[in-house]
């Protein structure tokens, strides 16, 4: 299966990745080859097979409803690219 340039640009946008036209040209055969490999799955009959999302079928563990995390806002914001006064700064969203 081959994706069109338009498909690739749409996927890139959904993934919030900027791709140049040059990259799209390079990605088309690469993703095409990967998709061809993936199509190999079609050779397997999976009717009546339940999908397995997790290798060990364990139930989600519950814990007591207790506060276990302390507020570490300052620590976490110290490593932010642009944060001040407890706020993360991004370009203007609403005029």
């Amino acid at each position, binding site marked *: 299966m081959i994706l069109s340039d338009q498909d690739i640009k749409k996927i890139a946008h959904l993934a919030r*990745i900027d791709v140049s036209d040059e990259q799209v040209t390079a990605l088309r055969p690469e993703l095409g080859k990967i998709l061809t*490999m993936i199509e190999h799955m079609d050779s397997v009959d999976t009717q009546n*097979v*339940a*999908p*397995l999302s997790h290798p060990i079928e364990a139930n*989600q*563990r519950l814990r007591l409803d207790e506060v276990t995390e302390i507020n570490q806002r300052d620590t976490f914001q110290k*490593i932010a690219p642009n944060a001040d006064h407890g706020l993360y700064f991004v370009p203007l969203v609403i005029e």
Partner: protein
Amino acid sequence: MHNHTIATLRKMLDAKEISSVELTQHYLKRIHQYQSSLNAFITICDETAIAQAVEADQRIHQGNAQALTGIPLAQKDIFCTKGIKTSCGSKMLDNFIAPYESTVTEKFLQAGAVMLGKTNMDEFAMGSSNETSFYGAVKNPWDLSTVPGGSSGGSSAAVAAQLAPASTGTDTGGSIRQPAALTGICGIKPTYGAVSRYGMIAFASSLDQAGPMGKTAEDLAIVLNTMAGFDPKDSTSIERPKTDYTAQLNQPLKGLRIGVPKAFFTEQLDSNIAAVIQTALRLYESQGATIHDISLPHNDVATAAYYVIAPAECSSNLSRFDGVRYGYRCANPKNLLDLYQRSRSEGLGMEVKRRIMMGTYALSSNVYEACYLKAQKIRCLIRQDFLDAFETVDVIMGPTSPTTAFKIGERSKDPIAMYLSDMYTIAVNLAGLPGASIPAGFVNNMPVGLQIIGNYFDEARILNVAHQYQQLTDWHLQTPAAFK
């Protein structure tokens, strides 16, 4: 000094024949000496390592030493280490000083182990050659023109070149076993859920598992004893009684039932590697083990299913890198979308972006069923294949990798060729089983790994089977001439 195993170093430290500070200084010196030729480390922790060694020596003098107290280790740069750069091999995290400690590294700190540094790796653990690292390729100590495998290539090269007695790796599709095989060392990927993933930067959460890499199976058991165990901070951690992975090491091999899948011996396997594996199997037979042909009928579609599931999970996990809260941010973003898109495009390498896009596609509404759901169904069949096999055998053996270490640059332009390096390891991750690789010989002077796969939580048996082999062979004692 650097020829010793952890088991021997422990005795030397306890007998005060050597101090942890001396040992740490010796390894740090070697790391610096070979950094330019191997590029095995991203961060070398000179100061903190010596401080940890001083503290370890005090513990040893007070008689409070545990198995790893004073033992220097190298940690894959995927584990968050508080106050120390944690890059995951990516430009995105080049400036990231982790604000918290991963459970794995916390356990090593508690045990008094010394952290020599953070090892190089494929970017976000996506690769089989260590060539996707933002910090450049790592070289294989056996032949500097070849790759050390990946993604834990810095960790494998560090142990093979004796820059650390042991290291940690993580394995999503073979990233501990394949580099161990390509560099002639030992490595084990434990059962999914045996080692905490807390603070281990996520690639594909239902597949990722951390494990030790070292010189011998015994050393793997010693390190795994500290690494493994239930962690309430990881919701996929399995709660079960603590295992002593060293307890079964000396059990004899007599009566061991070894399954050998025909699916692992196809035309893609280098025939010289096949011969090495057959020789290893004959040795097991001579010790009273029995060999049984087994069938893993869905192994040939494992790679296809993996390259749907792993990218799907990666596309979700890596959405957190948005240039807002930490990590790389592009210069002068025009608007919020531009901030997201350019931060990600400039901060992530091509292989990572390819996998994010592949995963985004696999999860998109029009192909979700045919792609993602189909892969999960195949995953179910793959697990069932193994469960059926373990009805009649105790362990499964075969090659770890279809070839020995390949040349740097040889496969980096062809994603499919690269993906196929993991054709014997991937199914084990999809099933969540434990698997190890140990050195079993050489082809054209390059190391070959024997893969040993066990049933769920049967790591102690895998290590027993590996340890017994190492009592009869000396492949694991071979070291590359330039790093003696």
